[in-house]
C-alpha cells in the first residue's frame, strides 16, 4: 500500500472555485501521482482463479442460510451494508437513534455529491450551492436537504467552510479521468444470498476501466470524509468482494481518499483481503443468527 499526503491543508472561502480555475502548480502533479499509482503494472493485470467467486459465495451462503433459517421463511429480505456489517459502533451522530441528521452526515453527503460533479463535469462552482442542488434531485435526500436548509447562519457557514476544505483536497488529489476510462460514480452492488432472503449491498464512489472476463481490470476509488481510515479501507475491501461475486473478478487496484486530511492510499486487491472479509462477514451473519435463536 502506498500512502500519500496532499499539500493542501486549508482553503479560504474566496478560493472555493475548484477545478476550472488555474490551480497551484503542485495540483496536476498530485493528481497525476494517483493516476500513475493506479496504472502502474496495468499491462500485467492478474488473471483471476475462475473458481474464486464460487468458493467465496459458497462460504457466505452457508452463513446466510443459517441466518435465514433463524429469521424464518416468511421474513422479508434482510439488507446489510458496510455500515452494519463492518463495524464497531461509531461515534457519528447519524448512527445514533435520537437525531438522524448531523453536520457530519451533511458533510459526507455533500462531499460525495461534489465528488461526482468533479468526475463528471471537471469543476464545481460554489460547493454548498452545487452540493445542495445535487441532493435536491434525489428524493431520498429530501429530509437531509431540509435539515441543511434550516441550519442557522453560523452552522451553515461552518458547514460551507468544511465542505470547501474537503472539496479542495479531493480536487487536488483525484485525477481527471478521461471518458475513455469509463468513469462511473455511485455504482450500486447488491448480492443476494440464501435465495434472496439476505442481501449484501454497497455503493462504489467511483469505478474506472471496463470489466474484462477472467481478469482483474477495473479500479475502484473510495472516499472517506470521517477520518475512520481503517473502516474506509475495509469498506473498499468489502465492495471488492461484492464486485468479485457480481462479475467473477475483483478490482485490480483500490484508492482510498480521505477528503478531510487530504491524503490517499493506493493498494492492490489481494485474495487474502477477500478471504479475510468473507470470514468476517460469515462470522457476523452467524452471530446474527445466534442472536435470533
Amino acid at each position: 500500500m502506498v500512502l500519500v499526503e496532499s499539500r493542501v491543508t486549508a482553503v479560504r472561502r474566496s478560493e472555493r472555485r475548484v477545478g476550472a480555475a488555474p490551480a497551484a502548480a503542485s495540483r496536476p502533479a498530485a493528481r497525476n501521482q494517483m493516476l500513475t499509482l493506479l496504472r502502474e503494472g496495468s499491462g500485467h493485470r492478474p488473471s483471476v482463479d475462475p473458481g474464486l467467486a464460487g468458493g467465496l459465495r459458497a462460504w457466505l451462503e452457508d452463513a446466510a442460510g443459517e441466518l435465514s433459517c433463524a429469521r424464518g421463511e416468511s421474513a422479508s429480505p434482510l439488507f446489510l451494508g458496510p455500515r452494519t456489517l463492518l463495524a464497531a459502533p461509531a461515534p457519528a451522530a447519524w448512527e445514533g437513534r435520537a437525531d438522524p441528521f448531523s453536520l457530519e452526515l451533511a458533510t459526507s453527503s455533500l462531499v460525495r455529491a461534489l465528488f461526482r460533479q468533479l468526475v463528471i463535469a471537471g469543476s464545481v462552482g460554489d460547493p454548498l450551492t452545487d452540493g445542495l442542488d445535487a441532493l435536491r434531485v434525489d428524493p431520498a435526500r429530501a429530509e437531509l436537504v431540509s435539515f441543511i436548509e434550516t441550519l442557522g447562519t453560523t452552522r451553515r457557514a461552518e458547514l460551507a467552510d468544511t465542505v470547501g476544505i474537503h472539496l479542495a483536497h479531493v480536487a487536488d488529489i483525484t485525477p481527471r479521468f478521461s471518458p475513455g476510462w469509463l468513469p462511473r460514480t455511485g455504482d450500486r452492488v447488491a448480492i443476494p444470498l440464501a435465495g434472496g432472503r439476505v442481501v449484501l449491498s454497497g455503493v462504489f464512489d467511483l469505478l474506472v476501466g471496463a470489466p474484462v472476463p477472467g481478469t482483474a481490470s477495473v479500479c475502484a476509488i473510495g472516499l472517506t470524509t470521517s477520518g475512520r481510515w481503517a473502516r474506509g479501507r475495509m469498506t473498499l475491501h468489502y465492495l471488492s468482494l461484492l464486485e468479485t461475486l457480481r462479475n467473477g473478478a475483483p478490482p485490480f487496484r483500490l484508492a482510498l481518499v480521505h477528503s478531510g486530511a487530504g491524503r490517499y492510499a493506493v493498494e492492490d486487491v489481494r485474495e487474502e483481503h477477500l478471504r479475510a472479509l468473507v470470514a468476517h462477514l460469515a462470522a457476523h451473519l452467524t452471530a446474527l443468527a445466534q442472536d435470533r435463536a
Partner: protein
Amino acid sequence: MDGRCLTSVLLEPVDGTDDVPAAVRSIPRTLAALAVSSRGAGPLRLTDHDIRSALSSDGSVATGLPFSWSARTARRALGLDAVRSLLSGEAKTPAHAVGATLARMARVRSGDRPSSSMEVWVAGLPAGARSAAEAEAVTWATRLWNALDWTAFPSPPLIGRDHWWDSPHSSLLALRSRAEVRSVVPGEQPATVHLVVLGGTRRPTVRSELCVVALVEALRAGRSAPPGRVVGWWPDSGHIARVDVNRAALDEGVAAVAQTLGTGSPRARTGGGTGKAA
C-alpha cells in the same frame, strides 16, 4: 456474469416457437373479457410497473405516488439515448453521449421548443443538479454498455423502444412491453429476443413479469418474427432470469395480467403514459 455470458444467453439460437402463433389467437378475446369483468371503470393501460406492483405480495413496490423527474427517474431515458449514440458511432464514450444528450435538452432554455416534460426539467436544472443527473445516467449507460458484447449482434439492436399493444376487442385495454435491447436471432424460423434491465431485489414473481413482455410481443408480432426469448438482467448483482417463449409462458403472462386487473393497481386506471424508470 460477464458481457460474453449475458450476450450468449440472449442471442443463442431459439427453438420451439412453433406453438406461439397458435396460442396467441385466442388471447385477445380472453384479455378483453378480463378487462370488461375487472372492477372499476375507465381505460386500463397496464405498464410493467403496474404488473410488478400487483404481483408483489409484500408491498415492496411503491404504488400511488405521483411521478416526478429526479436523477433516478431520468437515468434510464438519458442512458438509453446514450447507448443509441454509442451504437451509431455518434459518441465514443457513455460520458460523451450523455453530455451531448443533456446539452441538446438544455437548448430548450435558449428558445428551442421542448418536446417532453423531461426536456423542460433538464433545461431548468442548475449546475449541481444537472451534474447529479448526468452522473446517474452515465453510470446507468456504462453498465449496460459494458454488459453486452455488441459485436455479437447479427444486426444493430433496437435500443429502448417501449411497445404498446392495444386490444382490438376492448378499447379499454392496452399493455406495455418495456425492454432495453431488442434483436432478432436469425435461423430457419427467426425470432425476436428482448433484454430487460431489472431493478429492485430478486423476486419470485420476476418470471411472470417477463412473461408479460413475451405476451405483448407475441400479440404485436402478427406475421413478423415471434418472440423467442426474454432475458431479465440485474446490473446490481449480475444475475439473469430467462424466459423461453412458448404456450406456457404466454399463459403465465395472461395470468399476470388477470391478477393485475383484479388487483386494480391505482396507476393502471389513470391512463397516464409515464412509467417508473428502473
